[in-house]
């Protein structure tokens, strides 16, 4: 029983990790806390549902299609909204409130379009068992897709020009500008990448759990806890923190009660903020 819970926690933790990546990326690069992240994730998860159930595509094809879709949404969110705030002195507070408004918009439209009933996809991969542990194929695939993309982001940050440009802007917008990098363009791309990752995460969430619009709040709380635990803009730290959260939720549903497991993220968040506010891992941007 314990082994099964730990395996489930590990597998879902991979999804929590990739779900939180976009939040951490935007926060780390432009000091903007996207409170709408959870609702955007669930909106993109619903898009997966539309592509799979209504348009009868394969869920994995839907996942691939959501990458550019997420990128475009993120790119234009930056160009249309965030760009106007980023130079104001109180950007952190104002963007917080702005994205709170955006989360109401996204949630409201989601609830309008898809109602509040649970919706789920047909399970794409069979379940198998190994050494007495049940392994749902979809969750295993989700874990490996999530983990692979996290390592991909790490490579992107270290080796590519755009990755380095994003890190430069995260360190100092002015210095980046002095070196000929347009911080607005780089930030828009970073926002796009964040939402492309949210698209993948949304597709994975749709594959592993039934959807309802109210999941957005649960996911923004989880993502926030994961980012704080894993360190801002540190992809591998974020993945590990996601797994820590998944395991903690699993164990708490075993030891306390299943109904309370979404509250675990909150307790973990408060505990980390008080005991180890710098997170478990080194952030990419050091202030």
């Amino acid at each position, binding site marked *: 029983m314990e082994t099964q819970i730990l395996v489930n926690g590990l597998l879902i933790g991979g999804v929590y990790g990739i779900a939180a990546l976009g939040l951490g990326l935007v926060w780390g690069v432009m000091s903007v806390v996207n409170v709408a992240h959870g609702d955007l994730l669930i909106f993109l998860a619903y898009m997966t549902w539309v592509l799979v159930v209504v348009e009868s595509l394969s869920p994995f094809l839907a996942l691939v299609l959501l990458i550019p879709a997420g990128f475009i949404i993120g790119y234009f969110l930056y160009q249309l909204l965030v760009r106007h705030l980023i130079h104001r002195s109180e950007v952190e507070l104002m963007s917080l409130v*702005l994205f709170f*408004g955006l989360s*109401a918009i996204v949630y409201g439209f989601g*609830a*309008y379009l898809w109602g509040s009933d649970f919706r789920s996809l047909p399970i794409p991969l069979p379940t198998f068992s190994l050494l007495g542990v049940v392994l749902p194929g979809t969750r295993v695939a989700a874990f490996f897709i999530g983990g692979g993309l996290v390592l991909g982001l790490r490579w992107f940050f270290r080796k590519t020009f755009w990755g380095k440009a994003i890190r430069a802007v995260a360190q100092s917008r002015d210095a980046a500008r002095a070196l000929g990098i347009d911080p607005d363009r780089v930030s828009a791309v970073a926002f796009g990448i964040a939402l492309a990752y949210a698209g993948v995460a949304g597709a994975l969430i749709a594959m592993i759990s039934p959807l309802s619009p109210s999941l957005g*709040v649960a996911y923004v709380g989880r993502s926030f806890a994961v980012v704080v635990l894993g360190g801002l803009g540190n992809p591998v730290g974020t993945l590990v923190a996601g797994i820590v959260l998944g395991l903690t939720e699993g164990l708490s549903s075993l030891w306390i*009660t299943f109904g309370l497991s979404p509250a675990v993220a909150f307790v973990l968040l408060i505990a980390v903020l008080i005991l180890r506010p710098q997170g478990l891992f080194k952030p990419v941007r050091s202030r």
Partner: protein
Amino acid sequence: MRTAPPEVILERRDPIRLLNTGLIVLAVVAAGFLALQPGIPGASLVFWFNLMKAIVLAMSLNLITGYTGYVDFGHVVFFGLGTYVAGIAIGMLGVAVPVPLWVFVGPLLIALIAVVVGMPALRLRGAYFAIAMLSFNAATRLVILNLPSDFAGGAFGIPSPEIYDPRTAYYGMVGLLVAIILVTVWLAGSRFGVGLKAIRDDEGAAGVMGVRTTQYKLTAFAVSAYFAAAAGSVDYWFVAFTSNELVFNNVVTVEMVAAVFLGGAGTVIGPVLGASTLYLVRDFLWVRFPFLYLPMFGAVIAGVVLFMPRGIVGFVEDHVPSLRARIK
């Protein structure tokens, strides 16, 4: 360089004093109007009650978010707990305390909870505090859902048909509205209020200047939570029912945040203007496009941040300078 003679400074303070008196008179007149309202045929009690509730909730959020600068995305939790402190005592435990007394005393317990939560939470700043509160609301809702149902009603909520008396409860809300207006007017001109604004502008500097920041923040948070909780308790008295699906709803927080920022955070009159405007628009939209009203509230928040960051009050201040002293 000439410095202004002292009497000029005194004179300049006068309009503010006049204004405060004016606001109090306004509050009394409004209270009188609202108190007469149930007697006017054709007027809907529910309409005026909910308008007052929206104003009280916005003003309560304004105390911690507007004056102190701590954006709270879970403020509805105190409203919800307020309905439950009334529901559990009256509907579940049958405590022999008069309802009109308990709806004002019970929320003191919630203010106490706010102090306990505030001690760790108010050490966080900005987004950390906002999202900690958002999660606190979600967690509280789950805890109440999972409490024994003969104590907190579980998923069915707590009805108390025997206390149903909307006419009397209506006056409870009138009293609460007057109380929070008086508290805010006092606060805006007091040393305590200046201390809170100093914390909002620069907490470190405020501390160095001798503001006891922790104590100030906790007090503001507790008062803010008290009024939100009392609005919840009076609401329980008014509808004689609560359920955690309804009262821990983030939509209510969205409405509060929209009202505070639309009107002007950190002003006395701002949240009143914001909440009233949005209430009228919502009442109009709710009938025609029930699903659009949440996106509309979101759009109001986003639009205010982008185009009118200091709300209606700031907008008027910038464009009608002669009114500057009168609306602060």
